[in-house]
């Protein structure tokens, strides 16, 4: 059995490696299930003659965040800003370049091999595209049951009953047990994906754009299902999406990412009522409102997101920022607390 670290031990490790500041980032009295400290994920893009990497693509650059048990954190941002890479690095689907990840008292960066495999049921993932993330050759019962068998979640004689109960919980009829994924619609497939993740009784679920490939009416069904399951099983979600209205609906706290860094983070109410960072403002104003009588002052950003292999100096957003000042070009803004729980990285504050 792998020994679980206590909160005090984790705090000691953080203080030893990153100093007091990082330790104080997390509230002392709160029960965090996920702690991410200064996480970096660089991909080599250019190698020299001997195969040594010369240039890096900084997909995730210095991200610090924490999620309390039973809560949902939403991550928003443009495509290519590193949302998905962040989710995958937390699950150690990619090796960590630098920084620490603690899930439920386990140092994920240090865990390897068999012990990591034994931890896997605790953190599961729901992928973006339900059309490509299910094996076309396995029937639904086996897709959901594969992990259950591998990790011995239930005794063998109860296996079938358990799978059926999971399927019913996710709104799938038991008669789908021997059907194949191609016979299902997008919404049903996403239910299969959710059932596969939840069959392992996870504590943390990373949802990587689970509803962006679905229709509006199906979206509502899946979001309702995910909320119900969270209440029943006390799940924690890291919800990655570019749809702000969905994130607002499901999350307790929201983090906004730009070019691999977190630019703003805080409780949902604060972020949506009072967005501070110019990028967050632009992002929120770009959401179309389904009401023809509504007229809004839109901040339209010019140009595209810069390449993460060669990010701009200083504040990464200064090339597109409508409120950029000379200082933004030279100095990297510090990620600091503006009001309790509401953090922002911008020179304006």
């Amino acid at each position, binding site marked *: 059995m792998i020994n679980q670290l206590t909160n005090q031990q984790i705090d000691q490790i953080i203080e030893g490696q990153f100093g007091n500041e990082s330790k104080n980032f997390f509230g002392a009295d709160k029960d965090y299930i996920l702690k991410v400290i200064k996480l970096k994920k660089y991909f080599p893009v250019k190698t020299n003659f001997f195969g040594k990497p010369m240039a890096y693509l900084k997909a995730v650059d210095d991200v610090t965040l924490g999620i309390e048990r039973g809560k949902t954190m939403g991550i928003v941002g*443009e*495509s*290519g800003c590193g949302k998905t890479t962040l989710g995958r690095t937390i699950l150690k689907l990619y090796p960590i370049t630098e920084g620490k990840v603690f899930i439920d008292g386990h140092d994920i960066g240090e865990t390897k091999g068999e012990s990591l495999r034994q931890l896997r049921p605790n953190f599961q993932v729901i992928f973006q595209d339900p059309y490509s993330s299910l094996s076309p050759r396995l029937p639904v*019962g086996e897709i959901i049951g594969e992990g259950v068998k591998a990790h011995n979640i239930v005794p063998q004689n109860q296996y*079938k009953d358990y799978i*059926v109960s999971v399927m019913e919980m996710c709104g799938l009829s*038991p*008669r789908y*047990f*021997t*059907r*194949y994924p*191609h*016979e299902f*619609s*997008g*919404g049903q497939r996403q239910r299969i994906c959710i059932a596969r993740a939840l069959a392992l009784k996870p504590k943390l679920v990373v949802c990587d754009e689970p509803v962006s490939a679905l*229709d*509006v*009416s*199906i*979206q*509502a*069904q899946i*979001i*309702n299902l995910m*909320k119900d399951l969270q209440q029943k099983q006390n799940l924690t979600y890291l919800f990655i999406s*570019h*749809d*702000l*209205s*969905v994130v*607002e*609906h499901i999350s307790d706290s929201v983090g906004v990412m730009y070019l691999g860094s977190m630019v703003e983070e805080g409780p949902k109410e604060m972020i*949506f009522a009072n967005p501070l960072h110019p990028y967050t403002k*632009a*992002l*929120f*104003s*770009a*959401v*179309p*409102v*389904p*009401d*023809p*009588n*509504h007229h809004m002052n*839109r901040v*339209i*950003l010019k*140009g*595209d*997101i810069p390449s993460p292999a060669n990010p701009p100096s200083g504040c990464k957003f200064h090339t597109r920022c409508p409120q950029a000042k000379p200082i933004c070009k030279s100095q990297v803004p510090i990620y600091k607390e503006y009001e309790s729980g509401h953090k922002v990285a911008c020179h304006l504050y």
Partner: protein
Amino acid sequence: MPYALSTMNYKSGAIMEQNTTKKKKGSQFVSNKELKAIAKSNNAEISKFEKLKKRKFVKEEEYTTTLLDESNVLEVDNLHTYFYSDVGVVKAVNGVSFNVPRGSTVGVVGESGCGKSVTSLSMLQLVAGPQGQIVEGEIRFKLKDYKKDENKKLIPIMACDDFGTTLTEVATDKYGTPIVDKKTGAFTTCDKQARDEHGFKMFEMEDKTFNIAKMPIDAMRKIRGKEIAMIFQEPMTSLNPVFTIGYQLREAVLEHTPGSTKEEARERCLEMLGLVGIAMAERVYESYPHQLSGGMRQRVMIAMALSCNPKLIIADEPTTALDVTIQAQILELLRNIKKEHGTSIMLITHDLGVIAEMADYVVVMYAGRVIEKGTVFEIFDTPLHPYTLGLQKSKPVVGGNTDKLYSIPGQVPNPINMPKHCYFYERCKYRTEVCKGDYPELVQISPTHQVSCHNYKRKQAEYEKVKSTKESKGDKK
């Protein structure tokens, strides 16, 4: 025949056993004998339509019609597009009619699989044959066509000075080099042809109205890209990866403007790329699709659609694959184009926010039929069909706090063997005995607002109640 095979083979599994005996008689089961009969009738139908299409000489009178209302650019009237599949006929578009007025945006909303995209593909005769066929109905489109003389040659317009005498210029061959008389060594001269504001040679034109549903393929090529342009859903898959952006852009210009050279087309393309907000137009012109980002590619697609000054742009989910910030840029661009060029836009999307922002008229489709249409304000403020209401409720709104989202129960019915009653009957919250009868006709509520529901009066009365209470409150104040 995926359905037939799958239902026949699934007999294993303890859980399945209780259901298999009942399932065999279910609506989805098709026996081998039935399959053969379906294939036979399909072949007969398909060959009938294909023969009509493959005729070499089709008289123009056969496909010319007149518009019902001259202020429209395009009229779709009772369109039926069917797919002859192996398990039965799928009526993807089943009696759709709507108008696209000049200079306005028509939004088409609906779930995936409701026939939005097939309607737009029918407008350009791009439905994948031979299974997909336009069976019935008219798509009337008014355009300016080149006039031809008896020898089927274009009639050029000559440039005149103020006194009416034609001007002369040095004659050139098709590459733009001057023709030299071999004997004398002097340049040959000819009458100068008039050029339009883009520098292209002008020919005589006339107004014509065509029925697109019956047009032969070679006549159709004049309309595709020139009069009706389409922006496809995924910019990743609709650009050819082995040709440069420039090659793909100028292809349409060269095809549709007779007498234009490569350089003229290049100028025009660069102008278009500038218009859609691409800063380094010349660099993009030389680059390949994979070198551009998603937003840039979508803008190239829009530039391609605009390059021939089309009267109608069909945008099939132009922003679904893009982020909100890029989406805002693209929508702004489309709005500007509509304002400046007076282009009509048909916008297909399932995002109600985009529709509310862009459209003047809205068409709501469900299972291949129009269930409600009207102006944006009518559809968003006083929706009458339960499906329209459900769609609006199920979209989460920023700032709108609700614990549970409304979701329409059930799913779209099987497109093969559609029921005779209202297609929405099984999922409808307000169904009554009347709904079990015939399919409801489109009822005219106001000059622009139409709805296809038996119980529309129930909701109408509610709105009037709210309206009257509001008015009475206003009087008191």
